């Protein structure tokens, strides 16, 4: 499971861009949120990738282990995951409201309705 060099980061970046593309390009509100999720998770992967030390192990101190991976990115990402799920919940709640108000969750249909009114 050991990728050479920077490969790991590149994977994360490709995933980020896939998620970002979903956010930007898709008109469906839910799909945008899914894209946002993908985007965020990829950033988390990116962070976690940098915390790994070859031959290291999880930073839970236990006798018998010498090298531990970096705990700090984990801490940061724990926080970020929570933020991410909070975003999802909020955005989904909004989508429900939008669906109530407009009867659709397609961006262009909503725009059409807005420009009418």
């Amino acid at each position, binding site marked *: 499971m050991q990728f050479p060099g920077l490969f790991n980061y590149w994977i994360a970046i490709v995933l980020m861009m896939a998620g970002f593309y979903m956010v930007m390009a898709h008109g469906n509100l839910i799909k945008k949120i899914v894209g946002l999720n993908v985007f965020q998770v990829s950033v988390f992967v990116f962070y976690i990738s940098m915390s790994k030390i070859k031959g290291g*192990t*999880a930073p*839970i101190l236990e006798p018998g282990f010498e090298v531990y991976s970096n705990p700090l990115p984990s801490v940061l990402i724990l926080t970020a995951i929570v933020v991410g799920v909070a975003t999802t919940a909020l955005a989904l709640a909004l989508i429900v409201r939008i669906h109530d108000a407009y009867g659709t969750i397609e961006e262009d249909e909503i725009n059409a309705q807005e420009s009418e009114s």
Partner: protein
Amino acid sequence: MMFAAGTLAVLVSMALALARALLGPTIYDRIMAVNSFGTLTVILIAVIGFLSDRPSFLDISLVYALINFITTIAIMKFFKYNRIGRRSGEDLGGL
């Protein structure tokens, strides 16, 4: 060594399950694939824990199993009762 072999087997299976999830064709195939994928992840994490000599990570597997279950139930309910929003008023009978 054997853990590695086990890991490999599980990874292959995961790839296949993913393929099924992508191919569909029906919703139920996807659900099933996701479900299997979850189970496989449970195994994977358990094995990896042993692979890296830190079997205490099993907690994660346990949570996976739990969450996977809940998700599946939620999906079922979703399909049972809310197929397309609330427009379908008809009762589909007991599950």
